[in-house]
């Protein structure tokens, strides 16, 4: 775990001066699982710092729990240096979960690299984000977001209509941008997420740069209730193409946005569109 690179950013209420005073949206970021983790919540920075310590602990324990990084268990499996049957039961349990997803997606999602080794890094990240969100819930925080490596999980609102705790049931939703697959410094779409405390929304995006395969799409974004579902299905749709996408929308109730290799953008019926177009 590296030294944190904290940021503290304030957003205004978009000119809605008639709104009651809202807590400042504060953000903290730190490095974990080989990527950046960001926690945002409309609360006093000191309070957020305390909450972030809990979330940071979740990620630290995840790294220790699954042996991520360096010569840990996950990396040893990925390099083929360790056989799964000799791995810790925690990893075997995670692998069983991955196999469940493989079966559910008719093989479109797989925890195996094409040449055989088991790669559980993606599931470990989703596992950590989910537990980080649960930690925020356990702290009885109604409005928060957790992002890690481009995966988003959030609850409540960045701009609650009332100070947190007084009336947590109404507020502006979070808005998440999706990076353009042709230019990661710009956005191709943005979507409203959550808005009601206690009900999570997750967004995951996968690109076509994996193991040298020719994927069906260049980039796939999935909206789901939980981050593991969003993450796994984005990877499955990327590899499995239209049949997997149709089944995912039908069976899991997710919304999907895909970008084809030619730049064409296609959205499922549940994808939130801007009416002004």
């Amino acid at each position: 775990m590296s030294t944190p690179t904290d940021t503290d950013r304030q957003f205004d209420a978009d000119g809605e001066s008639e709104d009651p005073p809202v807590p400042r949206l504060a953000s903290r970021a730190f490095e974990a699982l080989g990527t950046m983790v960001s926690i945002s919540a409309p609360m006093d920075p000191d309070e957020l710092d305390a909450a972030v310590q809990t979330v940071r602990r979740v990620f630290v324990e995840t790294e220790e729990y699954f042996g991520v990084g360096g010569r840990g268990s996950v990396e040893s499996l990925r390099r083929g240096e360790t056989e799964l049957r000799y791995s810790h039961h925690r990893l075997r349990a995670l692998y069983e979960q991955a196999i469940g997803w493989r079966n559910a997606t008719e093989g479109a999602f797989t925890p195996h690299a094409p040449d055989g080794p088991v790669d559980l890094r993606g599931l470990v990240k989703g596992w950590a984000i989910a537990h980080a969100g649960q930690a925020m819930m356990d702290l009885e925080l109604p409005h928060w977001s957790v992002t890690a490596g481009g995966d988003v999980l959030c609850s409540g609102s960045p701009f609650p209509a009332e100070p947190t705790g007084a009336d947590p049931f109404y507020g502006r939703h979070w808005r998440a941008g999706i990076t353009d697959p042709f230019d990661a410094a710009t956005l191709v779409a943005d979507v409203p997420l959550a808005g009601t405390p206690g009900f999570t929304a997750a967004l995951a995006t996968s690109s076509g740069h994996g193991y040298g395969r020719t994927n069906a799409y260049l980039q796939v974004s999935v909206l789901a209730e939980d981050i593991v579902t969003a993450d796994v299905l984005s990877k499955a749709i990327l590899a499995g193409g239209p049949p997997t996408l149709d089944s995912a929308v039908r069976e899991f109730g997710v919304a999907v946005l895909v970008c084809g290799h030619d730049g064409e953008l296609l959205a499922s019926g549940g994808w939130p569109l801007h009416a002004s177009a």
Partner: protein
Amino acid sequence: MNIRQAIFASVASAGVLASGWLGGTATTTASAAAPSTHRLGTVAGVASSAHHRSAAASTTLSTVRRGQLRGTEPVQLLSGPGYTAAGYGLTQQAALDTSLA
């Protein structure tokens, strides 16, 4: 119906539910990762391999214009394919700064 579902039903019926995309139940998840009750691909062999690109067209997707996907409101969160810590931080921060500009 648990307490969160009750709250959800209450606020939804009162018309005060915020309009963001939202899952239909009120759990966060740590235990929501198992797909045991769902199964994709009801036609055998349709998506039998992750290595094959299907030529079948999706019956779910519709072509959308970029103008339908981007609004004018600033974003607070960013989603994109995973990068290393350094690469992700740089590109994502650039995108966020562009959105807020």
